[in-house]
């Protein structure tokens, strides 16, 4: 599904060379929910950037869904990102001038769907995160948790094979964080592969697989057991937010 072999990534400034990743090897299988942890500066964000095709690498081999990434130019990497990968960012990265509908619309535009298709997908995905009724609102009018759910809706609207999450709960309080987390688990349960970078060991335990990164290398930990988390099911209902929010 996702295979990284001996990936090397070096950041260069005028005088300093930083080896962000070296001999980085990882295999992620379809349906995995991988949590990536590690101290800051360990290379986890670099890994995420490379996995998300946001950055290139110097050496090694990276195959995503059967496609050899090393030989892709910027345009085709953009297309792959658009078709296969959904992103969730720590600070949500919603576009402040666009309402929720238009925000979710952004990747779908680049995908080239027609108008009806986009509308259907936007409505479905906002429905799924329980914000269908606030489609015309601006991000600033929402709470942090709601904003992150919009970001999740945006990531899912294109039905990607992978979901990459970068500290998805880092800017949220624990209640909101937990509700976002269970939403992710549901998404994973529906078959989407998720790779989540986090520094929160508690969250990491909720993933099906844990990877620890240190000094640009992987040191895998045991698979955690995540089957028995007793959070409410995050399937949308018509009555409002799918996730119970304590406010």
């Amino acid at each position, binding site marked *: 599904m996702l295979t990284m072999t001996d990936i090397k990534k070096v950041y260069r400034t005028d005088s300093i060379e930083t080896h962000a990743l070296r001999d980085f090897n990882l295999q992620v299988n379809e349906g995995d929910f991988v949590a990536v942890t590690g101290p800051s500066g360990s290379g986890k*964000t670099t890994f*995420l*950037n490379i996995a*998300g*095709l*946001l*950055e290139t690498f110097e050496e090694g081999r990276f195959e995503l869904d059967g496609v050899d990434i090393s030989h892709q130019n*910027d*345009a085709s990497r*953009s*297309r792959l*990102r*658009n*078709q296969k990968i959904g*992103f969730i*960012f*720590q*600070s949500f*990265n919603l*576009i*402040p*001038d*666009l*309402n929720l509908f*238009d925000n979710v*619309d*952004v*990747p779908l*535009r*680049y*995908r*080239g*769907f*027609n*108008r009806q*298709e*986009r509308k259907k997908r936007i409505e479905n995905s906002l429905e799924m995160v329980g914000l269908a009724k606030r489609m015309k609102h*601006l991000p600033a009018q929402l709470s942090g948790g709601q904003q992150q759910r919009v970001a999740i809706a*945006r990531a899912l609207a*294109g*039905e990607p094979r992978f979901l990459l999450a*970068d*500290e998805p709960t*880092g800017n949220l309080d624990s209640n909101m964080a937990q509700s976002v987390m269970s939403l992710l688990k549901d998404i994973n349960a529906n078959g989407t592969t998720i790779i989540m970078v986090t520094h929160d060991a508690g969250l990491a335990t909720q993933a099906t697989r844990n990877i620890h990164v240190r000094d640009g290398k992987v040191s895998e930990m045991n698979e955690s057991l995540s089957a028995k988390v007793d959070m409410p099911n995050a399937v949308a209902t018509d009555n409002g937010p799918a996730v119970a929010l304590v406010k």
Partner: protein
Amino acid sequence: MNEQKERSFFAENWEVGPILRALLRNKVGAILIALQIAFTMTIVVNAIYIIHERSEKMKRPSGIDEANSFYLSSVGFTNDFNTLVTTKKDLNLIRSLEGVVDAIQINAVPMSNSGWSMGLQTQPGAEFDGTGSAVYMVDEHALNTLDVALVAGENFRATDIQTRVASQNHWPDKVIITLAMANRLFPDDGLGALGKTVYINDIEPMIITGIIDKLQAPWVGWDNVENVMLTPEIRDAETSRYFIRTKPGQRDRIMSEVESLLAKSNTGRILRDMRSIDETRVRAYRDNSAMIRILVTVMVILVIVTGLGIVGLASFSVNQRKKQIGTRRALGASQQAIVRYFMLENLLISTVGVVLGAMLTVGLNIVLVDAFSLDPITWYYIPLGMLALWVVGQLAVYGPAKKAANIPPALATRSA
């Protein structure tokens, strides 16, 4: 759900709706650019129109051999000075010079902005209106000297030439007029004017014995600048003006020769105002050419200012939206899509600007027509102006858009 829906690059990839909605939330910046474009278009289009009008005016031929002609005046001041004798002697001298095509005495010169005019009318009597016409008093060498061609009738004969004294009121009985003047006098049949009698001083008859193709009056700003008549006269006044046509390339040499020759031949007069027709044209249209240069300068600077303004604001908005652009890139926008986004955004703003500009342009033109009796603008200047400003906007925003496209997608995952 998994199979790809059909891609339609045109309708779906253009983010007109979202851009517009985003713009509406940041109205002020967009309005400022739109207004700038509107005012710039207003000034530029009106300026171009004025420039066009002026340069058309400047292009009008005077009818004479401009490159090879010049003139000068001889003013006698001694009590025994005899203008007629001197003039005849001078002309013989000048005409005999190697390189001179011909020379005449003339009372005024095309484009010199000073001359005589009289009214001609087709019926006698003070109750009938005359048609204003410039008067050139010349002899039978005039057609050759002025480089004008007869389209009908004949030249003056040497015996036709009469002497005109100062403050004389009566006129010769023959006149040659331009075709433009003939058409003005006889609108149905200009060439039929030949042989007809017209009246000067309300009642004094003159017979049109010739019609010439083209000759301008001395006043370039006059509406009827092609209304001209030639009368067969030699003037007996202190001032005698000579008009000289030379062979190609000989003018400057002849000018200095004539000046020293005449100065030597008679010391009871001064020579003044020697000037080539080329210089006369420059002087006559100096206001117009100055106006054109000023307007061109203003236009160029204005377009640069507006362009730089757009560059500045666009760069700024790119800087402000770095994170957003990185996010778009992360979500799958190609570099091309980012460039397109900013170009399209500018196109939308410009469109508002040029539509407003079109209205302002017409408005300013109406004011100019009203206050300064300019001609109303020709319609196609407006769409051309709109197009031009669109292009300016697109060119200006291309740099910042390119810069935006180079923002790395990894910016999206960078915190703060």
